[in-house]
């Protein structure tokens, strides 16, 4: 059993429980947590260096936003993550389809991809520094490298496991072989391809941040590691909140794209 | 038969719909089933026959009215009321033997005793030799036999069956119906059998409740009076054919009005 057939690229990516009837209660829980954070620091229960008051962090976020510097960092991080992610998709989806549709590509790439998939790709950062230096190109290539494998895996599995009944129906209805891929196979495989993208995107974000921390320069990762080195804990917390918001933005965005594209799918009913 | 098996007294049930409006699944239903009677609940889908079964089982709470059994008023599931579902509901990670043993162990029986009893019931449903198979290795019919063995093994007073043969092919279905009837004859129990198959209901039951949809309610009560012995001879009999025709006419009415009410 190869990793490609092991089915660990699972369909129907639910990121977790949705806010349901208890929306108010759950918002209340969050507000209570924030209040607890602020209170514990004001009352001196937590050391202000280890846990700076929430209000200080919010003031810093506000100052960063006014100064505009934070948008440069966030923008750079977003640019690297998304560019790398999109290049990986542009390479990975066609390769996955080719692997499923042609014997040669399947034979040649299956073992390479299934060996590459579970490897911790961040370990290769020093090699990319050696080859491509420490600037944008290097960072983006690193993101491409880490996003590429889950996308190929999911596309390959999704395209290969397409049900034969819709295919036979389409043929019987007169679909040309050359159009079959676009009109039947890709739509049927799209849930799994999207799942692959949804696995790759968070990995890409993690990699972007680590790469920025290691290669330095501007970007949220670089800024945070600076703050850490200068023992600026307010800066570290502000950075965490910024990157969390950025992560929420892109991941939620991809979820919305999935919901829009798969409006025909039974999963859309939930 | 003066003893009662199940008494349903003025039971109503409604579900909260998605948009907040509630659907009345069952309205002011009364039904008395005698002890050791084989009773079929027949009706189109959505008529509340499964709801009534789940209420008797204690799986969903009774909102209005009361359900009584010889063991008392129903308020929760209990081993006095065994249930068999359409999709078997076997524990897929347990073997056939382990599935049947499960309920017996819950009764406090020792492991060897439970296993011996389980083997007896597995043999009774003709699954001897498959004790160590997992459900995924068995056909649908065999899985349902295992599920029936699991339920019968704990010896419930009441056997609740929720379209138990609905997922089986026609041939397997017939065989299972005959076997169920003969198992029931050998160790009588009060059976409530939910189905939408007229022939199945007539072939198996002593009495048939025909239910209407929206709101669900028992419209007709029919005694089959086909005698104890049920075999190919019964199916060929005039009485059987006439009953099926008459009941089909009653059910058809309900089914048409139910399908109009949909959407």
């Amino acid at each position: 059993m190869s990793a490609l057939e092991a089915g660990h690229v699972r369909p129907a990516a639910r990121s977790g429980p949705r806010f349901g009837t208890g929306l108010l209660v759950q918002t209340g829980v969050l507000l209570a947590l924030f209040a607890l954070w602020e209170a514990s620091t004001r009352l001196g229960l937590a050391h202000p260096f280890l846990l700076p008051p929430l209000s200080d962090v919010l003031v810093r976020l506000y100052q960063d936003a006014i100064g505009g510097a934070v948008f440069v960092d966030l923008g750079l991080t977003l640019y690297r993550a998304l560019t790398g992610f999109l290049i990986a998709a542009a390479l990975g989806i066609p390769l996955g389809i080719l692997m499923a549709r042609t014997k040669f590509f399947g034979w040649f790439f299956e073992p390479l991809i299934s060996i590459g998939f579970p490897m911790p790709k961040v370990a290769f950062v020093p090699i990319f520094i050696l080859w491509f230096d420490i600037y944008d190109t290097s960072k983006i290539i690193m993101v491409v490298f880490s996003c590429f494998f889950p996308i190929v895996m999911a596309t390959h599995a999704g395209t290969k496991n397409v049900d034969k009944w819709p295919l036979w129906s389409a043929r019987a209805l007169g679909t040309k072989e050359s159009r079959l891929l676009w009109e039947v196979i890709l739509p049927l495989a799209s849930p799994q391809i999207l799942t692959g993208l949804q696995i790759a995107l968070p990995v890409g974000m993690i990699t972007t941040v680590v790469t920025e921390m290691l290669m330095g320069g501007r970007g949220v990762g670089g800024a945070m590691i600076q703050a850490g080195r200068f023992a600026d804990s307010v800066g570290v917390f502000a950075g965490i909140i910024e990157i969390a918001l950025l992560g929420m933005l892109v991941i939620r965005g991809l979820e919305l794209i999935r919901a829009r594209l798969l409006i025909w799918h039974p999963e859309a009913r939930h | 038969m003066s003893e009662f098996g199940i008494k349903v007294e003025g039971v109503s049930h409604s579900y909260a719909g998605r948009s907040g409006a509630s659907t009345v699944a069952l309205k002011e239903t009364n039904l008395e089933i005698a002890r050791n009677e084989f009773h079929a609940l027949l009706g189109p889908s959505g008529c509340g026959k499964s709801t009534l079964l789940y209420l008797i089982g204690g799986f969903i709470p009774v909102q209005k009215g009361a359900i009584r059994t010889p063991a008392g008023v129903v308020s929760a599931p209990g081993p006095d009321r065994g249930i068999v579902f359409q999709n078997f509901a076997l524990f897929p990670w347990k073997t056939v033997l382990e599935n049947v043993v499960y309920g017996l162990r819950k009764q406090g029986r020792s492991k060897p005793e439970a296993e011996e009893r389980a083997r007896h019931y597995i043999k009774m449903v003709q699954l001897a030799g498959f004790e160590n198979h997992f459900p995924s290795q068995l056909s649908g019919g065999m899985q349902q036999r295992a599920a029936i063995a699991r339920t019968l093994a704990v010896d419930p007073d009441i056997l609740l069956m929720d379209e138990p043969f609905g997922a089986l092919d026609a041939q397997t279905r017939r065989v299972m119906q005959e076997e169920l009837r003969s198992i029931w004859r050998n160790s009588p129990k009060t059976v409530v059998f939910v189905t939408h198959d007229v022939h199945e209901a007539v072939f198996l039951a002593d009495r048939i409740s025909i239910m209407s949809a929206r709101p669900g309610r028992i419209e007709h009560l029919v005694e089959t009076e086909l005698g104890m012995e049920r075999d190919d001879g019964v199916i060929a009999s005039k009485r059987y054919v006439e009953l099926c025709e008459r009941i089909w006419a009653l059910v058809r009415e309900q089914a048409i009005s139910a399908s109009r009410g949909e959407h």
Partner: protein
Amino acid sequence: MQLVIRYLPVAIFFLVWEIVTVTGLVSRQLLPGLEVIFSAFVGLVASGEFLFSAYKSLTRAAAGLGAAIVLGILIGLFMATNRIFLWLINPIVRIFYPMPKSALIPLVMIWFGLGDSSKVFLIFLGCLLPVIISTYNGARGVGQVLLWSASSLGASRFEILREVILPAALPDILAGCRTALAFSFILMVSSEFVIAKDGLGFLIGTLGDGGNYPAMFAVILAVAGIGFAADRLYAAFAASRLHWKEQS
């Protein structure tokens, strides 16, 4: 023979690597030859440096991952069965889930310094969410009829949780743990790159800084190999726990 054909592409990959280094198509500084990398690896093993680093790293990953699995399964099960608990935990899960966990590296540095605890805590946090979410989804997905069958056979609430919900959710839980395993390696290496005084990530960093590229390549390939082997071992373990599932 089939195995040879199947893994021939891997051999071709290494062959191309060897050819471009031997012929000098690619500078040997940028891509050391395989034999140079191998002898560097033998040297690292002989000096004990590699094994010490591997021991340090893997114990961190195992500690963080182990704690995350135990706690994650418990939290996920409680979330699926207790609404109050769900409301308390869900907002926290929803906020932390989309955050790139590597952003926590500077935080654990401030909290725990450069020692083991900072890395263990980071790995723990990063692995916790995939386990919680997959356990929750698995436990919520258990069919109603399975729960009803168990309760009608006389199982108590706690017995249903332990004997029905947990095994029924096992496929999802095992899948979530596999994701967590991958995260544990990513976070182990990244945190050791940034904040550490030992471990495989740290070793790669020092070898790179010192310009000892063959050795750096050797350790990177070894880390990739360990990550791959861990995933395959885990997959075999998971498959053995799910032998009751239909082979499809």
